[in-house]
């Protein structure tokens, strides 16, 4: 079976909240995601009848919250558990140059995304149920648009999720973050006085989406990592506008093709960001749309920015990147968690009996990643997916003067709300929350033992509680 968004939805109907009643694209869908996040529930959300801002029914149904659940995401990727996502993602996407699964090319007549073609004046972005997610967002945004550009020197493609504000039927702003590889490609075209060709593809199987988001070197195609995560080659089709110069996934739901004219910048934003703050209005390139192609019964995909929907999937991708980078330097690394609570900024590293100095090596390596801002090293007995356990280790295994260190002047994100005026780099902290090494490999660590009850007593306690109605007992 060819992987696609619809093959995923068909397989996960039981984990889907499907609403048949009309729901507005203005704030209402995102409010639903906020409510579900607060309740700790992460279903896929399908809106059969989205209503556009002017009250008209949208031409397409809407799906969102695909990436909100770590558990579902890990299962979809074929990982044994979300707790092992870092290692498995690293093995699939960061196995080295030439690894992964080569994409295959299909003819346009065999590409589902080419079923309906609207080119030139027939192209109309305003029929899409693009959401106005948060207060201060100025209009409808594409939030799950995978922007694919090509390095004009090497011809190698790059793909990243980048927001677009729909400003008219054939015009939208596009915000490739300044440090992104797409921005690097765009600048090369603009330096030659040429418009930058770009295709935005929306809606695919989550395994393809997760693989396409792999944090790779430059220039390095993402199709192989997408195939690796999907365990099958990604089917590509030449774009309608640019042909084989710019390939797009044949099994996507929607493809928007166009070009960013050189030097043309317009206001974009404010926009609710991954930090869960609203990012400022910025000057961004615009895209003049040449064509919109889609499946016959296309489904529009949105990603809830600043919510679990965006953060969980994105953080798993970064866990894989950090695991691959740190493991090379610190072989005792066994796991990585980038928790939603820290947005992209925090990373928890788990090490199994690190050699003297190795925990600091690991932390230093992870701090070099542009996204991290605080990196913590823990022993293997700490559950790095339980923040109560994480904070207990920080409270009891850290002497701040000895075990933490601040490094200033590193690259970071200007979207970090804590930045001061004129700031261009960030300060970061490393924390070694591991125990001191034991005198001998099998000896206990030279610290007090953790309290525990014998296994038999624990089993008896659980037996006493079995069947008791706990719902009326105080929970806080």
């Amino acid at each position, binding site marked *: 079976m060819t992987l696609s968004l619809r093959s995923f939805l068909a397989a996960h109907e039981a984990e889907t909240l499907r609403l048949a009643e009309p729901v507005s694209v203005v704030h209402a869908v995102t409010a639903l995601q906020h409510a579900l996040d607060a309740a700790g529930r992460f279903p896929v959300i399908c809106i059969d009848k989205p209503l556009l801002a002017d009250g008209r029914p949208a031409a397409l149904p809407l799906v969102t919250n695909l990436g909100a659940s770590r558990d579902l995401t890990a299962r979809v990727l074929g990982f044994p558990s979300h707790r092992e996502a870092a290692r498995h993602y690293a093995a699939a996407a960061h196995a080295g140059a030439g690894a992964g699964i080569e994409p295959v090319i299909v003819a346009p007549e065999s590409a589902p995304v080419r079923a309906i073609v609207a080119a030139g004046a027939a192209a109309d972005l305003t029929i899409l149920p693009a959401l106005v997610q948060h207060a*201060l*967002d100025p209009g409808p945004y594409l939030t799950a648009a995978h922007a694919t550009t090509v390095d004009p020197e090497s011809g190698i493609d790059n793909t990243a999720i980048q927001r677009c504000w729909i400003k008219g039927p054939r015009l939208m702003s596009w915000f490739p973050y300044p440090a992104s590889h797409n921005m690097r490609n765009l600048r090369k075209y603009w330096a030659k006085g040429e418009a930058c060709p770009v295709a935005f593809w929306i809606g695919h199987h989550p395994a393809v989406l997760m693989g396409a988001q792999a944090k790779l070197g430059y220039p390095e195609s993402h199709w192989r990592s997408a195939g690796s995560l999907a365990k099958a080659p990604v089917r590509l089709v030449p774009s309608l506008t640019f042909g084989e110069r710019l390939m797009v996934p044949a099994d996507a739901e929607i493809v928007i093709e166009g070009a960013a004219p050189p030097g043309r910048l317009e206001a974009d934003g*404010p926009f609710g960001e991954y930090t869960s703050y609203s990012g400022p*209005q*910025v*000057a961004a390139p615009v895209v003049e749309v040449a064509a919109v192609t889609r499946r016959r019964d296309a489904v529009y995909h949105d990603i809830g920015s600043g919510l679990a929907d965006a953060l969980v999937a994105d953080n798993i991708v970064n866990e894989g990147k950090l695991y691959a980078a740190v493991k090379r330097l610190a072989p005792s690394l066994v796991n990585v968690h980038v928790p939603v609570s820290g947005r992209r900024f925090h990373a928890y590293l788990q090490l199994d009996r690190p050699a003297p100095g190795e925990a600091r090596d690991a932390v230093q390596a992870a701090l070099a990643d542009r996204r991290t801002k605080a990196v913590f090293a823990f022993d293997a007995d700490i559950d790095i997916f339980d923040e109560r356990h994480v904070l207990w280790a920080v409270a009891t295994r850290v002497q701040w003067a000895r075990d933490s260190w601040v490094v200033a002047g590193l690259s970071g994100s200007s979207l970090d709300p804590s930045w001061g*005026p004129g700031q261009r780099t960030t300060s970061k902290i490393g924390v070694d929350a591991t125990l001191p090494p034991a005198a001998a490999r099998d000896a206990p660590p030279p610290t007090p033992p953790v309290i525990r009850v014998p296994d038999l007593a624990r089993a008896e306690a659980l037996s006493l509680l079995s069947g008791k109605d706990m719902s009326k007992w105080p929970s806080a």
Partner: protein
Amino acid sequence: MAERLIPPGEKRGATIWVRCPGCAGWFHAAPELVAPDAPRLCCPHCRREFAADEAAAIARP
């Protein structure tokens, strides 16, 4: 005017707020959008486009 010396440890924000000359709504903008020759700002409240020097107010940190 000489810049005020910022003591180490003193917190300062970086957000620049702009007031729309049309609807008087406030929104935040990056420094490059309130610089000379910047692209026109666009009010997210009323969609009015205006140059930074037409803003009703700009509150810089």
